């Protein structure tokens, strides 16, 4: 009888160990799967962020607050940045701050327009507080034009958008 009891107990212990091993195995599998899912999600978020930032370059260049209006001698807006309007953004912080939500919602930490040919001034359109880690900068070129009476003077400028990594 005692031997039989012992056998039964050993059997139960064996089963318990097998179950523990199986649960441990499933837990490991689940961890790997969760890690894989997280990586996929991060990858998707990065792709969306990149796509969004590339589009934001066009958005910046077409902002009515910056873009050359019909005053530059045509019936439609022409593709350039108005230097006089840009100076307002650069010099008047409270106007600049009113547009902060647009940049923040796109995870953008900095928007700068700098004159590159000939090399000239740098204008800050938006600048967040603090230095972001793991940031990427995208840029595009655009004419920066200033209208005086009857004359339009243009230089080549670069729009630089810095965005935070996900």
């Amino acid at each position, binding site marked *: 009888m005692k031997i039989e009891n012992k056998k039964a107990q050993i059997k*139960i212990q064996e*089963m318990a160990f097998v179950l523990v091993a199986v649960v441990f195995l499933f837990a490991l599998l689940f961890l790997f799967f969760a890690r894989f899912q997280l990586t996929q999600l991060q990858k998707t978020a990065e792709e969306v962020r990149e796509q*969004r930032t590339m*589009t934001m370059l066009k*958005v910046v260049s077409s902002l009515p607050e910056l873009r050359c209006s019909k005053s530059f001698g045509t019936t439609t807006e022409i593709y350039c940045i108005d230097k006089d309007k840009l100076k*307002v953004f650069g010099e008047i912080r409270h106007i600049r701050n009113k*547009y902060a939500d647009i940049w923040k919602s796109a995870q953008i930490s900095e928007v700068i327009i700098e004159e590159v040919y000939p090399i000239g001034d740098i204008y800050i359109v938006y600048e967040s507080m603090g230095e972001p880690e793991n940031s990427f900068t995208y840029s595009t070129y655009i004419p920066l034009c200033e*209208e005086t009476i009857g004359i339009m003077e243009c230089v080549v400028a670069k729009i630089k958008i810095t965005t935070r990594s996900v």
Partner: protein
Amino acid sequence: MKKKSQFQFAWIFAVIVGALVLFLAFYFVGTNLLSKRYEETTVETQFLDIITDPFVYLGSMGATTYKPLALPREYEIIIECNFDPSMDALGKNIITLIQDSQAGIERYVYNKYFYASKEIKTKKLNALSKPFEMPWRVSDIIIFWPAGQKYCFVGAPVRISNEIDNLEIEDIEIENYKTECSKESITVCFYSTSDCDINVYSSSVEKTDGKVYYTGDALMYAAIFSDKFVYNCNLKRLASRLNIQAAIYEEKAKALMGKGCSVQYNLEDIMAKSKDIATTKYVSENQIANLEGAANLLDSANSNYCRLF
């Protein structure tokens, strides 16, 4: 006897643990499926915002743009508007996508003005974009309605019917009489008092949810296709943005004077009228008319040799 009880105990133990493992397996699979759907609806909301970005810069060419948009599956799209003039300068549209009662994360959009019925359930959308000018281009308004939802414009002015024809919008019929409209279409009657779903007058649009006031074709389209609350809220957002832009142009006017321009631009009137609309609860016909008057004055003052905008 004891053998039998030991045997039974082993079975009971195995069944309990097996049930526990099965329960955990189903729970994690279900949670994972739910989070996947949550991820999908959130990503789709982002894509809806991104895909409408081209409308923002096409308007700079004075273009009215029409584009059908397709989502990967049917969603319930909720478009809301939020604007508190004391707290934010631009306000925001809030977009939420819902699939099978699972809502994604709300997407806040600050630089666009979406006009639509508050809730749309569809897989395909019609998107119409028009620049809102007062007198310069303030921004572009983007109007959504579900693809397949037909509208019948009755007695529309020639410029409207030509525009619809040029854009080849299949879901808008142009007819001379209400009886010629398709049965399931929403009738929009221009400058008449017929028993139509929507009545468009010279400065207002009347629908079942009430009357809203407009000026210009952009706001007219917005009033036809949009919910009254969303229309009113976005109009206030546009007025607020106009106010900020007027401040920018005021500085530009000073810069032009410094360059020898002798034209004196008075932007205070338009700043006051736009602020009046931005801070009001419901926009009235007088407020719209006053703003339009201020814009027209500024437009006529926009000198040819020293243009401000």
